[in-house]
């Protein structure tokens, strides 16, 4: 329990202090939403947030496609040439330090630009970088869920005359929907949260939210950032609660559906 206190105390304090009327951490100046007002008037944060959301949505979608392909291949194709290398390529971006991913991708983009004059660095390059490691995360989730998925369902569908691609679309993908949803959301949050890689691969045109937060945080504690963090946490909390509620409802529905009795 002490361990969970350690994990959550800083977050709780942060939320508390976002409502502190005083600018100083030392002083509790009473309850006030003033920093939320200040946050909404902060145009730099607003623009950065918009950039981040756009990048994250695109990166998450691309991650979902790549990660589902990869996770499916690893879970279902058994041994194929290059499987070991493939597995390594899927795992490495998850643990290789971010500075290395950032630096190497930047150097690639710079080289591309000098060879082909494209792409100019900005939202597109951030999106590509984020899709790369986001896809790896999605593949882990998809692979894990496929491992627990009853293959007899697929075989039954094949037996009933469905073509392999139909089975994939009508049986397998709906069966792993939770992993797909979780994968997209995870890729989205990771992209929204990334500072290091985005800092490397961005150009002068695009500033993401973590970059804006970072430059203000480097100067010390900022109440506006507290307010921003609280809103971020609230959004995550609402999403998680919603997901929990949806799953509980689905579970209830499954239980109330009359079962077919064995003859």
């Amino acid at each position, binding site marked *: 329990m002490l*361990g*969970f206190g*350690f*994990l*959550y*105390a*800083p*977050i709780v*304090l942060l939320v508390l202090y976002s409502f502190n009327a005083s600018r*100083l*951490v*030392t002083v509790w100046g009473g309850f006030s939403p003033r920093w939320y007002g200040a946050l909404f008037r902060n145009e730099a944060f607003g623009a950065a947030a918009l950039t981040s959301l756009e990048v994250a949505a695109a990166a998450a979608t691309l991650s979902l496609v790549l990660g589902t*392909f990869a996770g499916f*291949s690893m879970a279902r*194709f058994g041994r*194929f040439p*290059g499987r070991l290398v*493939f597995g390594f*390529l*899927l795992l*490495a*971006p998850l*643990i*290789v*330090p*971010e*500075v*290395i*991913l950032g*630096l*190497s991708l930047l*150097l*690639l983009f710079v*080289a591309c630009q000098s060879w082909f004059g494209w792409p100019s660095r900005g939202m597109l390059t951030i999106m*590509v*970088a984020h899709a*790369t490691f986001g*896809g790896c995360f999605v*593949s882990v989730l998809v*692979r894990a869920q496929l491992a627990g998925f009853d293959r007899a369902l697929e075989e039954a569908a*094949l037996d009933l005359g469905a073509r*392999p691609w139909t089975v*994939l679309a009508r049986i*397998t993908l709906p069966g792993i929907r939770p992993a797909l949803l979780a994968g997209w*959301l*995870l890729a989205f*949050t990771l992209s*929204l*949260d990334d500072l*290091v890689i985005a800092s*490397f691969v961005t150009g002068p045109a695009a500033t993401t939210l*973590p970059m804006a*937060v*970072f430059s203000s945080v480097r100067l010390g*504690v900022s109440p506006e*950032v507290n307010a*921003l963090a609280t809103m*971020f*946490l609230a959004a*995550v909390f609402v999403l998680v609660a919603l997901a929990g509620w949806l799953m509980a409802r689905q579970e209830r529905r499954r239980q109330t559906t009359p079962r077919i009795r064995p003859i």
Partner: protein
Amino acid sequence: MTGLGRIGRLMLIGAPFLWLALFFLLPLLIVVKISLAESKIGIPPYTPLLANGSKGLEWRGTLANYVLIATDSLYLRAYLGSIGNAALATALCLVIGYPIAYAIARSPSVRRQLLLFLVIMPFWTSFLIRVYAWIAILEPQGLLNQLLIALGLVTAPLPLLNNQFSVQLGLVYSYLPFMILPLYGSLSRLDQSLVEAAADLGARPLQAFLGVILPLTLPGIAAGSLLVLIPAAGEFVIPDLLGGPGTLMIGKVLWDEFFNNRDWPVAAAVAVVLVAALALPLLAAQRFLEREHAA
């Protein structure tokens, strides 16, 4: 399912494979290439490896950047500092994380789900913000010092921020979930009757732990340790926000080399050496995680 046809399989494997080759492998090769170049002022800020010289195309590569890294003690200290910090953080995560993972694995089903959720939850909240949250706590005028003074434990604020202590705290705090999850995976698969059999055969709790539980959860320990060690060794945000002038970590050195000194070739060489140092642990990590998948 094998009925997807050759083209289908090729597409499902090939698209992500190509993507990763293009945006993960190729960039690493380019890093190696640029680490052999010299820095110059211009766009791009490095010299080409092949250039037209007096005798046609000439090789202009140089190992100067590596020589610099090897001779300037700053880099060596930064590498050792990173690995030392990461290793200590890994050990601390293991010591703190093991009891937590054990408690979760032994909880009744409903509570287990809740606790697991609480461990995973930090993944969904901002890393940057969680590290930042410690600043307000550790500052000289921060909450922890205020609390300690109010309790009469200290008279003057302790220097908690911008030193080795705060970096270590930040690393452990941020990477603890990465340790707990694989440990939990290993522990939840551990057959409880093995522990009971050990007790039945006369093993006291500590002996049962050392003789049965620990050896059987080694894969989880290895996976968790590597998942903490490797990224922590290259960490930038934590040493930057929580570290002080004495904090030398290679991730921060690389960042400064790149953004402040604008010396791309040296930054690239620093990265190459780091990747080389981490390659072995990385391969080990894949082995252990693949085995976890198979189980």
